[in-house]
């Protein structure tokens, strides 16, 4: 539309009045038109009273645009773009143009929105759980530490320098590079206790607790009526009897009460040889036993019946022959044959010989029996091979030292005295003094709890073992008179001294001595207060004799018996474990030459065997 229409002057000379009127009218129209035209330098904002149409031309160099509404391509932009968050893909109604959307389910980002959301344009992932707490940082280290008097030494240090005053237990910081510009001291003592924090959120529900044993009877308590009481104990039943010390209470409480135990028919018989731990580190006696017309190497064992779910044990075997380490021959007490699977493993150290480094042995573990049914005789009188250990592949070796064992050597015999007499006497003289267990100094003690010692308290001078080495020799200390001390001290090649406590005793020193293999010298405190020991001689024994007199001498090798064998035990029959040894290249065995390190043989059996033959009331 034309914004200004002016009239032409047709006859300026002929009709000046009319021309003037036309000019004035044009001027008025111009003024009015200018009023309706955008001003480029107006002193007030142009005021529009109708639309402003740029006719598809750009609006350039606008500083800011203020509008009630802005439409782009026909769609209103009523405010700034916004983030919308929701679960799952956004619906069309969510958000406006140019908005963005975060799908909190998977981290997908949509936008900017046009008329529709379209596909996700990015993914930021889901915020993971809080990571583990990091390692503790290093503790604060002051730049310098010292007493109060030292702080001026650091007056010229740079800003940030710290000094820990050990006198005041305070830290001071340099506040600037200026001389002596220190902060006030900061104490390292704990501050006052803070206010009580808010009550925390309620914790998660705990796991389901144990069932009250008294409400979980697996065995009819009325079965126990058959037990006579014969008086009143501290409690009338088999439960709740708790009169022991707290330690005992704790141990006792670990096991269920009897009347909550299921009656099971499963039982286990364990056959356990004495092992290193149970013998306090001395070798058990595994003797040659003559029994039932045979002589054999017999392994002593503990026989223990385990009735599952109860500590009660009832013997399936009873002792027939025993020694100080267990049952040697044992008799089956059942009234019916027990067909069982004997399984297990026994680990031994076995001595191959006294002084033959190339000797080796083959050991066979056998189950001997007597008084079994005749059809069990077979060709070996019923003896069953249980396991074999092949010895030729593992070279035997000596114990590197003896410090882990407690074994004593054999008693002095005339034969040992005769043997020792053929070797030189290493004893030179005695010294007035003594040492205590654990002593490690050259100087002997000369005073005890009573006071200064007298001349009866004597220790041998150091005796040189360089020629007769302790790894192959035992030594016979022969004395007359009385002796109440037998303490051994060793000096190594480097001069260090220690007491061989494992072989030190406060009884007579007249005996066979073992000395640790790292000993270059040895001395023995042999005469205590009031003793009359004299005529001392300390002589090595021959190498072969030493190997017979000292249970730790000789060559040893690991031996393992792995057993898996079906066996029948017959009522009234006797049984024993026999170690049958075949020796090669000078091998030999001794009764102490079988040191069990652990293991057992066992078999499960039907506890009904016991029910049928014993009481019906103890299950």
């Amino acid at each position: 539309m034309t914004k200004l229409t002016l009239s032409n002057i047709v006859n300026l000379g002929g009709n000046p009045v009319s021309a003037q009127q036309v000019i004035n009218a044009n001027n008025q129209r111009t003024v009015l038109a200018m009023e309706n035209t955008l001003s480029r330098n107006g002193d007030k904002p142009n005021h529009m009273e109708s639309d402003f149409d740029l006719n598809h031309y750009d609006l350039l160099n606008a500083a800011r645009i203020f509008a009630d509404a802005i439409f782009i391509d026909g769609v209103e932009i009523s405010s700034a773009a916004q983030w919308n968050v929701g679960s799952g893909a956004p619906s069309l109604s969510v958000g406006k143009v140019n908005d963005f959307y975060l799908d909190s389910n998977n981290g997908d980002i949509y936008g900017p929105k046009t008329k529709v959301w379209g596909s996700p344009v990015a993914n930021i992932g889901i915020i993971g759980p809080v990571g583990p707490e990091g390692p503790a940082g290093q503790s604060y280290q002051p730049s310098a530490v010292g007493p109060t008097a030292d702080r001026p030494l650091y007056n010229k240090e740079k800003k940030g320098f710290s000094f820990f005053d050990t006198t005041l237990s305070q830290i001071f910081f340099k506040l600037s590079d200026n001389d002596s510009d220190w902060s006030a001291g900061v104490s390292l003592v704990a501050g006052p206790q803070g206010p009580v924090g808010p009550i925390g959120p309620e914790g998660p529900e705990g796991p389901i607790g144990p069932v009250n044993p008294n409400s979980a009877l697996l065995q009819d308590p009325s079965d126990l009526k058959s037990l006579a009481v014969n008086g009143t104990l501290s409690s009338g039943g088999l439960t709740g009897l708790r009169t022991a010390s707290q330690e005992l209470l704790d141990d006792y409480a670990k096991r269920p009460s009897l009347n909550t135990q299921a009656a099971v028919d499963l039982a286990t018989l364990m056959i356990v040889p004495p092992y290193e731990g149970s013998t306090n580190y001395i070798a058990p006696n595994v003797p040659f036993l003559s029994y039932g017309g045979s002589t054999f190497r017999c392994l002593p064992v503990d026989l223990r019946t385990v009735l599952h779910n109860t500590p009660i044990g009832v013997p399936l075997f009873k002792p027939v022959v025993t020694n100080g380490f267990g049952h040697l021959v044992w008799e089956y007490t059942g009234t019916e044959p027990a067909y069982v699977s004997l399984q297990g493993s026994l680990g031994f150290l076995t001595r191959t010989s006294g002084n033959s480094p190339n000797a080796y042995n083959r050991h066979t573990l056998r189950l001997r029996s007597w008084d079994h049914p005749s059809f069990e005789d077979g060709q070996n009188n019923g003896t069953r091979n249980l396991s074999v250990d092949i010895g030729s592949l593992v070279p035997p070796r000596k114990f590197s030292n003896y410090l882990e064992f407690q074994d004593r050597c054999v008693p002095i015999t005339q034969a040992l005295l005769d043997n020792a007499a053929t070797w030189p006497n290493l004893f030179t003289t005695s010294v007035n003094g003594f040492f205590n267990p654990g002593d490690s100094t050259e100087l002997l003690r000369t005073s005890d709890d009573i006071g200064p010692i007298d001349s009866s308290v004597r220790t041998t001078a150091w005796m040189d073992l360089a020629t007769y080495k302790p790894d192959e020799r035992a030594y016979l200390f022969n004395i007359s008179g009385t002796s109440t001390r037998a303490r051994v001290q060793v000096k190594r090649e480097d001069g260090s001294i220690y007491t061989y406590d494992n072989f030190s005793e406060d009884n007579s020193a007249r005996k066979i001595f073992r000395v640790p293999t790292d000993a270059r010298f040895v001395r023995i405190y042999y005469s205590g207060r009031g003793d009359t020991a004299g005529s001392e001689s300390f002589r090595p024994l021959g190498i072969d004799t030493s190997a017979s007199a000292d249970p730790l001498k000789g060559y040893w090798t690991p031996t393992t018996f792995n057993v898996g064998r079906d066996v029948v035990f017959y009522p009234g029959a006797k049984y024993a474990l026999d170690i049958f040894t075949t020796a090669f290249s000078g091998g030999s065995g001794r009764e102490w030459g079988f040191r069990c390190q652990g293991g057992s043989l066992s078999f499960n059996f039907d506890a009904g065997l016991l029910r049928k033959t014993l009481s019906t009331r103890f299950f």
Partner: protein
Amino acid sequence: MAIVTVDVVCPVHPNYPMPSLAYTSTDYNFHIRQFSSDTISATGIVYYFPGSGAVAHPLTTNPFIIDLTDRGYIVVSFGRFGMEGASSSPYKTSYGNVNDPHFTAHWIKSGWDVASALAFLAGGGSLPFVLLGSSQGASSILAHLAGYCGTDAPAATTYANFRGALSCAPTVGGLGGYQWNDLPRNINSMCNMVYLNNAKTLIAGGGLDDYAPPDYVRRTQQVIPDGKDTYELTPGPTFPHSFVGTTLGAPIVGRWVSQLMNNTTITLADGTTPAIIGGVVP
């Protein structure tokens, strides 16, 4: 009346299983002290085997010594290795201490203590005798009667004048020290000996016993087979482990010893109610 004592050195039985070949039984001795009244003629002998904690024989003022001697019995107190007058223990650094896990071997040697005393004293001659033990000594009696000495029959049963045994709180010290020893194994081991014993035996436990608590006693009671002449008794709910030598316990012990010695009815601690054999309801 006064109580007189006689001390005797008792040799170790020649078959005694020493802890290793380094020890010979001929080098060791037990010690026996005999207690008797100076006015009453002896009618029986009580062989007393103390617990592992005993380091000396009981005193003449001990209530059970007084009670038994008053009843006309000679009390022969046995002192094992390490006790007053006996040899030092060869087990100090070797096999066989009370915390030993290998109970069977422990009881074998303990059973030989009883055999040694009976063999040395030849069962006391013609006088009837009863074996009395407390704690480990009570267990020694059971081990002996269970045949743990092996080839030899239980020495006690070979004597016609044997009247029975009173085993008071049989157990062994160190209960609960699981490194070596634990209560279930102790019960298990004791059950074996209770079961194998065929002699007339009274087993007694106090209600406040820390070492053989009532539950322990009742479990061993469960394994007494039908037909065995074994009684489970209690002096009462308030008696401790070592009740034999207490003022209240001594007369009960003395009465039970007397009932064994005279083969009369075994009663409860009240002295009147007949006791029930083993675990069998009559």
